[in-house]
């Protein structure tokens, strides 16, 4: 006996993501999901963004890590509200976790919520969190083959930040290869070269961010 279903396997996650979208819209909040491999500089990027834009944007952060609240501590030290989710082994954040975190952030006092996903270029891509945009961070030391190796993640990005650009002269990294591989996968993504550590290129990222928020 055969039962034809054709049901979406991640429908529970998708329903929770939809709830998050409604919640964010009700609170007039923008929400960006940050995806990258571990060590690409997501937290440094956020801390600098929070400090540099403190007079312009009220930012809250949902931190996802397998263990520890180190990142939430760094975000709070930079002056923003942060909620840490410890996934206890899971390699990605799911929409119900974000739902819980949104309910524990002072959302009425915020303009923008960043979700710093678990460091991983594969799994987070498949899980809609209800975000209004996706930011993928690729750092120079990771190598120039990453867009081709992890096509799903790069294909679904709204912005791709190439971080640690200050290290490019010390490492073998073919920027042209990265740009042409991204062009194949995602012709719409905005690509910004930055160094969250030195501040190089950060103004272009802020310009994109402010424009994105203004267009809501």
């Amino acid at each position: 006996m055969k039962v034809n279903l054709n049901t979406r396997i991640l429908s529970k996650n998708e329903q929770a993501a939809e709830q998050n979208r409604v919640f964010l819209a009700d609170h007039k909040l923008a929400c960006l999901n940050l995806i990258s491999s571990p060590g690409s500089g997501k937290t440094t990027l956020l801390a600098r963004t929070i400090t540099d834009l403190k007079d312009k944007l009220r930012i809250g952060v949902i931190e996802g890590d397998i263990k520890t609240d180190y990142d939430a501590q760094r975000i709070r030290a930079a002056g923003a509200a942060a909620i840490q989710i410890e996934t206890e082994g899971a390699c990605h954040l799911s929409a119900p976790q974000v739902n819980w975190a949104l309910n524990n952030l002072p959302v009425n006092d915020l303009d923008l919520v960043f979700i710093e996903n678990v460091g991983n270029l594969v799994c987070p891509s498949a899980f809609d969190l209800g975000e209004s945009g996706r930011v993928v961070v690729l750092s120079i030391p990771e190598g120039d083959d990453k867009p081709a190796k992890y096509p799903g993640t790069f294909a679904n990005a709204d912005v791709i930040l190439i971080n640690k650009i200050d290290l490019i002269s010390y490492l073998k990294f073919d920027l042209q290869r990265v740009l042409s591989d991204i062009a194949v996968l995602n012709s719409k993504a905005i690509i910004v070269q930055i160094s969250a550590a030195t501040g190089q290129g950060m103004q272009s990222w802020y310009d994109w961010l402010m424009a994105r928020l203004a267009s809501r």
Partner: protein
Amino acid sequence: MHETAVAQSVLDTILEQADKLSARPVRAVISCGQFNALNDEAMRFAFEAATEGTVCDAMQLVIKHIPLRAKCDHCDRLFEFDIYTPACPECKSEHFNFQADAPLLLEEIEFENPNDKGGL
């Protein structure tokens, strides 16, 4: 290893259906697109681990990979995207747009026929 989350979700739906029909599931077919990055080996391993000790133990899992299609900007041809040769097979243009990638679907579940005692 998002396959563990996928496996758990598939199992939940199969158990629900098995309960409704009071039948033992023997085979399930799932399908996925190219950007879901579902790995067959990891998926089978995760499914085996998830189903252990349940009525789904030892059931067969079929995994279908649906190709990603793209449409050429130049000649409008629809083609299956291949990352090694990212160009239109017709006019060789490198300008094209992806069609929507296939979602993760649980397509069908096959249950043991209630009259089939032992059988296969």
